[in-house]
């Protein structure tokens, strides 16, 4: 007979902190918070072993609203703070919350290196294509031509694609979802939480005040299925309200939309999130609405030992080989001499 040592069953409510939430009414952040609070209790991890680390921005106030250990960092540095934490404490599950400005503008380099090192972090980037907290300047994901406080005549800067950046930086897990697409977001967050290594999730998030409606195409219940493709591993790329359209690879190596009346399912692109080579994931990441249906879900999920795991392993190996460190032996190494 085995004893029941299961953890106490937690619910979303257990993860709500006592702090008043201070986002604007109808900000997309609320929904993301709700989904995270829903996912955390399902992971079988004691509450005290979660840490949520953020930078600065509206989105980065997130840790205050979760009753876990939390760290509200400085602008752009959350991935670096989280990396230090995770290396020092591999036993913790560390989430990083960042924004398009925090994560891709000032913090782009830390994000890039956390991803390429494959540190076991769950990185959620709230992309609202604007600087919310500083009241509406354009961000690295704002489309060209965008008029904002700092670009009164329209932006002339070409935007980044967060997914292309992540894939270009050797990400092992890459996904995208939408703030108000509750079920989809929950599934994606769950997948991220279960991934060993760095999990990068871009969430389209509505900034109701400074960039309202930027992601309507992907959030409107009745039309989103026509604008998005919901990726499923091993399945062909089919989309549309009536699931009557598909995407195949054209002769030019690029995706094209076809009608399922005319093209067989077998000729479509089959999604392989586990492909060793990231090129297919990269290709899917380049499909953007309105030119093409925009993929949502998990683009890439491959296994590779994480940085923290490899480091721990190296510590063990060296210790096994050389024995546990002996300070006095260290002091006495090299040439020593005795004075009497």
């Amino acid at each position: 007979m085995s004893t029941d040592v299961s953890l106490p069953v937690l619910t979303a409510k257990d993860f709500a902190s006592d702090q008043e939430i201070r986002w604007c009414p109808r900000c997309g952040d609320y929904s993301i918070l709700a989904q995270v609070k829903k996912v955390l209790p399902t992971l079988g991890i004691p509450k005290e072993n979660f840490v949520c680390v953020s930078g600065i921005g509206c989105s980065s106030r997130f840790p205050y609203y979760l009753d876990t250990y939390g760290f509200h960092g400085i602008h752009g540095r959350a991935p670096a703070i989280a990396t230090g934490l995770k290396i020092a404490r591999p036993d913790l599950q560390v989430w990083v919350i960042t924004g398009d400005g925090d994560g891709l503008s000032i913090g782009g380099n830390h994000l890039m290196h956390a991803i390429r090192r494959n540190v076991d972090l769950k990185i959620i980037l709230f992309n609202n294509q604007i600087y919310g907290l500083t009241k509406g300047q354009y961000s690295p994901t704002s489309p060209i031509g965008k008029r904002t406080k700092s670009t009164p005549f329209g932006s002339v800067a070409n935007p980044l694609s967060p997914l292309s950046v992540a894939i270009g930086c050797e990400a092992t897990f890459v996904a995208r979802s939408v703030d108000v697409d509750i079920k989809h977001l929950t599934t994606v967050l769950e997948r991220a939480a279960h991934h060993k290594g760095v999990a990068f999730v871009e969430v389209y998030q509505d900034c109701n005040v400074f960039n309202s409606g930027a992601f309507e195409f992907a959030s409107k219940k009745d039309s989103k299925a026509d604008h998005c493709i919901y990726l499923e591993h091993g399945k062909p790329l089919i989309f549309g309200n009536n699931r009557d359209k598909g995407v195949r690879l054209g002769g030019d190596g690029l995706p094209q939309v076809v009608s399922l009346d005319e093209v067989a399912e077998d000729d479509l692109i089959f999604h392989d999130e586990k492909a060793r080579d990231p090129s297919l994931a990269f290709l899917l990441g380049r499909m953007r609405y309105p030119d093409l249906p925009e993929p949502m879900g998990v683009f890439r999920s491959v296994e590779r030992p994480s940085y923290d795991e490899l480091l721990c392993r190296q510590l063990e190996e060296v210790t096994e080989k050389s024995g546990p460190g002996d300070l006095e032996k260290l002091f006495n190494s090299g040439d020593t001499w005795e004075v009497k």
Partner: protein
Amino acid sequence: MSASDAAQSGTTGVDDKPIETLETVVVRFCGDSGDGMQLVGTQFTNVSAVFGNDVSTLPDFPAEIRAPAGSLAGVSGYQLCFSSGEIYTPGDAVDTLVAMNPAALKTNVGDLKRGGTLIVNEDAFDKSSLSKAHYDRNPLSADNADLAAFRKHSVPMTRLTRDAVDGLGLSQREADRCKNFFALGLVMWLYDRDRKPTEDWITSKFARNPTIAEANLRALRAGYNFGFSTEAFTVHYEVAPAELPPGRYRKVTGNEAVAMGLATAAKLAGKDLFYGGYPITPASDILHELSRLKNFGVRTFQAEDEIAAATSIIGAAFGGALAVTASSGPGIALKGEAIGLGVMTELPMVIVNVQRGGPSTGLPTKTEQSDLYLCYYGRNGDCPVPIVAAQSPADCFAMAQEAMRIAVEYMTPVFLMTDGYIANGAEPWLIPKLDDLKPIVCTHPTESNGNGDGFLPYLRNERLARPWAIPGTPGLEHRLGGLEKADVTGNVSYDPDNHEHMVATRARKVANIADSIPPQEVNGPESGDLLVVSWGGTYGAVWSAVRQCQKRGLSVAHCHLRYLNPFPKNLAEIFSRYQQVLVPELNTGQLRTILRGTFLVDAVGLNKIKGKPFLITEIVDKIEEMAGRSNS
């Protein structure tokens, strides 16, 4: 030297040249970067240390990795001082200079004492090398008066080395690479050093390549025997062992001592060390040293930049590690914002600043003390950070522990300041026993302090330190961050009174550290004409100068500060006992300005900003000027 040794190296007879006894000797080896000068300098130091001398060293690398062979920029030097007395610096002026090529002669001969011994490799003074060193004519030529002040020995080192290794089948290039050992052997004879430790070192170092080992051994002995047997050298010297406190010693550089001090602090606190750093001269060796201590549980993280390094240690400290970063000038400047976050979140961490010549990229390979302002003040807002500074290579070991103790006891970032001079310089270190070291008490709460009101992360103890609760502890979940925090609860607070209270509390907490540090000591008379105040790596030169002046009867005392923020409590009182205060610094007067502002004391500066340590005489001159002046 035993007879069999001599026999082995092919010479006969007994060394019957007269031997004179000296107290202190300064030797400098210099040559091209590729000439292996750091290696022979280190060997000579080791041999002298093992013999029992007090030693102090000053390596001087070129800024380039490998500047063009023979160029002035490519000269590499290694100076060491060894003595039968106590010494504190590598010496002002050189007794024996070994110059392996014209460029080395040109850039170094100015530091050789009048009457000093000059040994040059005359084979290297060919036309092309002379022109690379911008010599119009050969300075070794007999009619050159420039070198007349020295006991000059032109030795055909290249040829003699080739001869010595003849028959081993070495390429000429390989053969020539042994000539540094020839030079070493010669100087070893000159100062009656025991070759054995170096011979052992060569044998084990080149164990995989016995031919090379043999060649280097032969070169070493050939050099030794050259001194022994040629007419040129009429006398040689001995320097008796010093009377150091008894115990086992090793040589240690400042960077090594910092690394060992940090690892020791972790052990004493019963915790793991986390080091986040980004390479930069002259701090990189701390990263290198710690990277090797994997079996000590030391985790090193080479971050993508200094900001990531500094923020990674904040994360690690939040996780409960003893967290450290190290850098130099430009890198420390980059860490300012992150250190402010450390101050606001009141987490323990140590930031090591190995100072180099500034501003900007400045003089990366040279020493300076010009980052004191930066460490004191280089953050936005009222943002006090404790500062301690090591005074010598070996002192880095103690001060690294002390920095960590303060960090943990007071829950605060702490600066440990060193500089390029003590980071790369070496001195004998009395190896401590772990049991003799002061433990570092470090606790993490496991239960809430909130009387049912949840955990209160900013509820302070008598020192004003807040509790270090770490993730993984059930029930103590809390959030930290850079926004102003309400005292006790730690919630974000925009309350005006709370802000004023917190700014004052953070300042008071740092001021409280003065309760936990020793009162300032003064060396010299209890009161008098002049107090010389120094900090950091100038300790040796300043103390040597003050001691000299004291011996000459001047009324001067020395006060060396290892604690810079807060200052020891008795400092104001000390100032009141002397008529004048002199602050020698390798900067434009940073400590002086801070002392003036803090104590309203009309301190005078002696400032040298040449990327080089003080000479003892420079300080002596100033002391004489001032202590003399007030007497008249």
